[in-house]
C-alpha cells in the first residue's frame, strides 16, 4: 500500500512535469512527420511510416525514462524531500519500488498515447495494421522498464546529471552489445572471456527491437517472445534488487 501511495504520488509528479509534455509533443510530431517524409520515397512509404513511428516511440520513451527517471531519486535526495519519507514508517526499498512503479505507470500511459498517434497515422494513410506491431510495442515497453531500472540504479549513488549520462551510455551500448560477442570471437581466450563477461553484464537491448520484423512482415514465435519478456523482467529485477541494496546502506546528508 505504501509502495502504491508513493507510486501514485510519483505519477502525479510526472503528470505535472512540463518536460514530459514537451517530449510527448515532439514524439507525436515525429510520428506525424513520417507521413510527409514517406512522400519523399518511392513506393515503400508504409515501411517508412512504421520505421519512423516505432523509432520515435522508442527514442522519446527512452528520453522520458532517463530524464524523468533520474530525477526520481537523486532529485529527492538533493532537494531533501526524502528526509520526510524515510523518517516515516516506510522502508527504503518501498520508497525505491514506489518510485519505480510510478514512472512505469507514466511510461505506460505515454506509450499508449504515442501508439495511438501511430495507429491514427497508419489508419489515415491506409496502412494495414498487423498483430506484430503490438508485439513490437510491448517489447518497446519492456525496454523502457529495463532502462528505468538502470536509471534508478545510477541515481541511488550518483548525481542526477551523472545518472543521465551513464544511463544514456547504457542505452547506446545496450543496443550494440551483439558486436561485443562478434568482436570477442576473433580475440584470444582471455580477451574473449572479458568481452563475454561484459556482454552478459550489460542489457542486450537489441533483443527488444522488433522494428525489422514489423517492417518486413517477419514472425516471432510465442516462445521467443516469452523468453525475451522473461529476460527483460529478470534483468529489471536484478537491477532493482542491487539498487535497493545500495540505497539501504546510503547516508542521506
Amino acid at each position, binding site marked *: *500500500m*505504501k509502495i502504491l*501511495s*508513493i507510486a501514485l*504520488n510519483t505519477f*502525479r*509528479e510526472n503528470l*505535472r*512535469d512540463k518536460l514530459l509534455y514537451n517530449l510527448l509533443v515532439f514524439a507525436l510530431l515525429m510520428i506525424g512527420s513520417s507521413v510527409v517524409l514517406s512522400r519523399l520515397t518511392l513506393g515503400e512509404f508504409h515501411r517508412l511510416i512504421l520505421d519512423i513511428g516505432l523509432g520515435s516511440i522508442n527514442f522519446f520513451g527512452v528520453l522520458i525514462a532517463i530524464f524523468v527517471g533520474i530525477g526520481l531519486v537523486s532529485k529527492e535526495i538533493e*532537494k*531533501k*524531500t526524502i*528526509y*520526510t*519519507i*524515510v*523518517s*516515516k*514508517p*516506510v*522502508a527504503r526499498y518501498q520508497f525505491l519500488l514506489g518510485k519505480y512503479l510510478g514512472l512505469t505507470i507514466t511510461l505506460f500511459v505515454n506509450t499508449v498515447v504515442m501508439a495511438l498517434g501511430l495507429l491514427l497515422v497508419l489508419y489515415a494513410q491506409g496502412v494495414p495494421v498487423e498483430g506484430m506491431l503490438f508485439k513490437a510495442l510491448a517489447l518497446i515497453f519492456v525496454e523502457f522498464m529495463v532502462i528505468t531500472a538502470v536509471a534508478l540504479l545510477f541515481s541511488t549513488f550518483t548525481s542526477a546529471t551523472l545518472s543521465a549520462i551513464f544511463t544514456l551510455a547504457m542505452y547506446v551500448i545496450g543496443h550494440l552489445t551483439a558486436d561485443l560477442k562478434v568482436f570477442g570471437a576473433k580475440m584470444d581466450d582471455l580477451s574473449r572471456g572479458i568481452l563475454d563477461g561484459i556482454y552478459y553484464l550489460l542489457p542486450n537491448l537489441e533483443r527488444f527491437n522488433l522494428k525489422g520484423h514489423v517492417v518486413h512482415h517477419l514472425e516471432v514465435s510465442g516462445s521467443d517472445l516469452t523468453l525475451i519478456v522473461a529476460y527483460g523482467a529478470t534483468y529489471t529485477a536484478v537491477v532493482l534488487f542491487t539498487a535497493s541494496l545500495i540505497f539501504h*546502506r546510503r*547516508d*542521506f*546528508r
Partner: protein
Amino acid sequence: MTTNSEFVVQTEQLSKTFRVGFWGKKVTAVDGINLEVRPGEVFGFLGPNGAGKTTTLKMLMGLIYPTSGQAWLFGRGLGDPQTKARLGFLPESPYFYDYLTSREFLGFYGHLFGLWGAGLDKRIDELLDLVGMTHAKDLQLRKFSKGMLQRVGIAQALINDPELVVLDEPMSGLDPIGRKEVRDLILRLKESGKTVLFSSHILHDAEVLCDRVAMILKGRLVACGRVNDLLDQGANHQVELVVDRLTPEGLDHLRPLTDKVVMQGDRMLVVLKSQQQVGGALEIIRAAKASLVSLNPQKGSLEDLFIREVEGHRRPPEDRA
C-alpha cells in the same frame, strides 16, 4: 536491542564520522553524545551552525547510520518501523513536493501511515487549522512563502499524531511573527502531552520554551540540564539598579560597589558587582534621599553561557561536513 524505556530518546556515545573529499579524509561530525529526553518535556538541542545538531537528529531519524555508539527511541533501537509510526519529523529548511497542494501533500503523508478516507480528511482539516493554513489548502506549495512552507512542514510532522515531535531548526528563516507562531505551537504540543525535541541556534527561543537543553559544540556535548540550573551555574549574579536623583556625593559613595554606572539626565543605571553589595547600596541611596526605581538580579542568559563555552573550547579550526 531494547533498553530502559523510561526515556523517549536516549543515546549512548553516539558518534558519526564522515569521509569527505577525493581522499576520503575523516571528519568527525558527532563525537560520543549522550542524551536523555524524558516523556512530555520540551528539549532544546543547541549549538552553532555546523556543531553536529542536524547530524545527530538525522541519525535518530534513520537518515544516516551512526559510526559507533547506540541510540534508542521509546526504548527500541533505531530504524524500527513501529517506532517511526510514533514520531514526527520536520527537517531543516525543508523542500517539499512543490507540485502538490497542501491538502494533497498532507494526504500523501497520511497514506504512508495507512490513513485514508474521511478520517484522514478530518485530520488534514484539523492540522491546517492548527497551523493556520486553512486558507491555502488548495494552493500548490510552489506558491508558498518560507513561513507557509514551515507551517505545512510542521503539519506534515503531526499527521500521525506522534508522541515525539522532532524539529530541526524550526525557527530559522522565519520573521518574528512566524517565530512566535512556531513557539506557540510547540507550547501547545507540550500541553497536549507530546515530547518535543528541537534544535536551534537561536538561544532566546530555547530559553523561553525548553524544560531542558543540551549544548553541542564541534560534535561534543558541552552542557546539559534544566535551563534554570544552567543559567544559575553560569550567572555572575550581578544586580542592576535604576536610581533617580542621586546626588554626586551619593554617587561617590556608591561607586566602589559598582561595575558600571550609566547616567541619563536625572536617572542612572547602576550595575552592582554582586548580590552582596545590595544592602550597602540601598543604604547609600536611602541616606542620599534618592529614589530607587527598580532592582533586577541579572540571571545571565543561555547566550552568555554559550559564548563562554565556545570561547573555552576554541580549538584549531577543522573542516566540518
